[in-house]
């Protein structure tokens, strides 16, 4: 009986919508649905899964910053780890609460800090310039397969200290992990099937002997040497690099290129002032957020947005909808690289705010700078093709022409 009750709204006065946020239709074009949810209330009930949905900026921000009431250790996907078996051993940072989370995060935050980025910046810049040089010469490219995927798969695993061979397996891993935050729908099933053959390879990369001494991965093991974390925890934290560090930036870059190609006036601004690369990437994250959603679980009964939430209720926070909430942003559907969208939710917020955000910004800035300096225009040469994912806003293909200066 309890299971059934859990899937019903606490009372009939709650704003309730018949929307499936993991349907092909929703994932293909989420924005009209986002608007419906925002307009229906601060917090709405989704009948499809018996979950709460939060789509306004203020509520998303408030919920994500209240880690005591909205916990992560019961999973940040649809599944509730208190009542269901997790699909993989839970992450020690993403799917954890303090004090475990604090211990993991302290180590990762140091390894990925702005200071650490200064150390890798030169290498990352060199690779961005080499790649964009080659692609501008080529002219017609697939901006996903030949740029968006290639660059993060080069620089980030280099910095982590992985071997060159087999890195494309990380795309299948990331795709599967981010799909697993949704229901067991056809998108998830297909992702699991594609991941299964590379599972062993991925898990093997987390071992210390596979990691270049001094790289980000090895630095996790050094933290274990220093007693900050245990040796059992170290490979699990390397796993977090591999799951969260690639498909996110791949799509962050893909979405930024899509937005710039679709707004030639904005790309022209970037060409005139390449120092806008960093704010342009930031606006791309707001406008087309690579990570669209994350769940939390209600720890114990609490009132939120004036509504009674019960222990174990699941709440789906729509980062992407918050990023286009007109209550927060003037002209939210306008892509403006000079906007300075401080406070967007694309990296989440609060203690679980993306620990790798300095890496993501560095990659985005360097690619857009290199492009602006080499291509005077970028134009679509075919229809962009989306790749549906339960959590990510992703592309399969972005046919594009880069026109040199």
């Amino acid at each position, binding site marked *: 009986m309890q299971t059934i009750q859990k899937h019903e709204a606490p009372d009939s006065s709650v704003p309730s919508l018949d929307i499936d946020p993991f349907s092909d239709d929703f994932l293909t074009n989420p924005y009209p649905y986002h608007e419906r949810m925002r307009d229906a209330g601060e917090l709405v009930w989704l009948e499809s899964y018996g979950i709460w949905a939060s789509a306004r900026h203020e509520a998303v921000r408030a919920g994500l910053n209240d880690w005591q009431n909205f916990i992560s250790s019961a999973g940040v996907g649809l599944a509730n780890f208190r009542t269901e078996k997790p699909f993989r051993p839970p992450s020690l940072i993403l799917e954890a609460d303090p004090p475990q989370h604090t211990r993991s995060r*302290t180590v990762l935050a140091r390894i990925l*800090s*702005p*200071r650490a980025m200064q150390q890798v910046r030169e290498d990352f810049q060199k690779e961005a310039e080499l790649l964009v040089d080659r692609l501008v010469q080529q002219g017609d490219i697939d901006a996903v397969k030949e740029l968006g995927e290639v660059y993060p798969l080069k620089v980030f695993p280099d910095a982590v200290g992985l071997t060159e061979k087999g890195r494309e397996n990380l795309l299948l891993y990331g795709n599967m992990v981010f799909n697993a935050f949704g229901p067991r729908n056809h998108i998830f099933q297909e992702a699991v099937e594609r991941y299964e053959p590379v599972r062993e390879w991925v898990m093997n990369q987390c071992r210390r002997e596979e990691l270049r001494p001094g790289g980000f991965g090895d630095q996790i093991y050094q933290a274990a040497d220093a007693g900050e974390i245990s040796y059992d925890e170290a490979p699990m934290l390397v796993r977090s690099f591999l799951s969260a560090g690639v498909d996110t930036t791949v799509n962050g870059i893909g979405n930024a290129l899509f937005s710039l190609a679709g707004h030639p006036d904005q790309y022209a601004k970037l060409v005139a002032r390449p120092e806008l690369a960093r704010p342009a990437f930031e606006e791309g994250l707001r406008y087309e957020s690579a990570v669209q959603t994350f769940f939390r679980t209600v720890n114990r009964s609490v009132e939120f947005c004036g509504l009674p939430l019960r222990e174990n209720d699941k709440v789906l926070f729509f980062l992407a909808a918050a990023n286009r909430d007109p209550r927060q942003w003037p002209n939210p559907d306008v892509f403006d690289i000079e906007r300075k969208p*401080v*406070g967007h939710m694309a990296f989440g*917020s609060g203690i679980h705010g993306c620990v790798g*955000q*300095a890496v993501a*910004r560095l990659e985005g800035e360097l690619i857009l700078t290199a492009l602006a300096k080499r291509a005077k225009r970028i134009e679509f040469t075919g229809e962009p093709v989306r790749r549906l994912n339960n959590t990510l806003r992703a592309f399969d293909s972005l046919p594009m022409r880069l026109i040199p200066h």
Partner: protein
Amino acid sequence: MATIKYIDQAGGETVLAVPAGTSVMQAAINNGLPGIVGECGGSAMCATCHVYVDEHDIHKFEPPGAPEREMLECTSAPLRETSRLGCQLAVREGDMITVRLPESQQ
């Protein structure tokens, strides 16, 4: 309400009246004040809202927690005794705070 005075490198002063609970970073962003970037939005993840709090006001805030101390190691401008991240400094009702802006944030 509370009052925050920002003094830039050239000695220029901007005084903002903001509701209690607002952070020194958020107040600057809301009012388009140059000199504070606040890139990460207030998660103590980027060290681009670095300020020097006036020594008469520094005791009005709780000392920095571990994440802020870690991030203060990453500031672009020199670190001083009074260095703080503006995103971690929420003003209280009636506060009058003076902060100085560093020469750079990135």
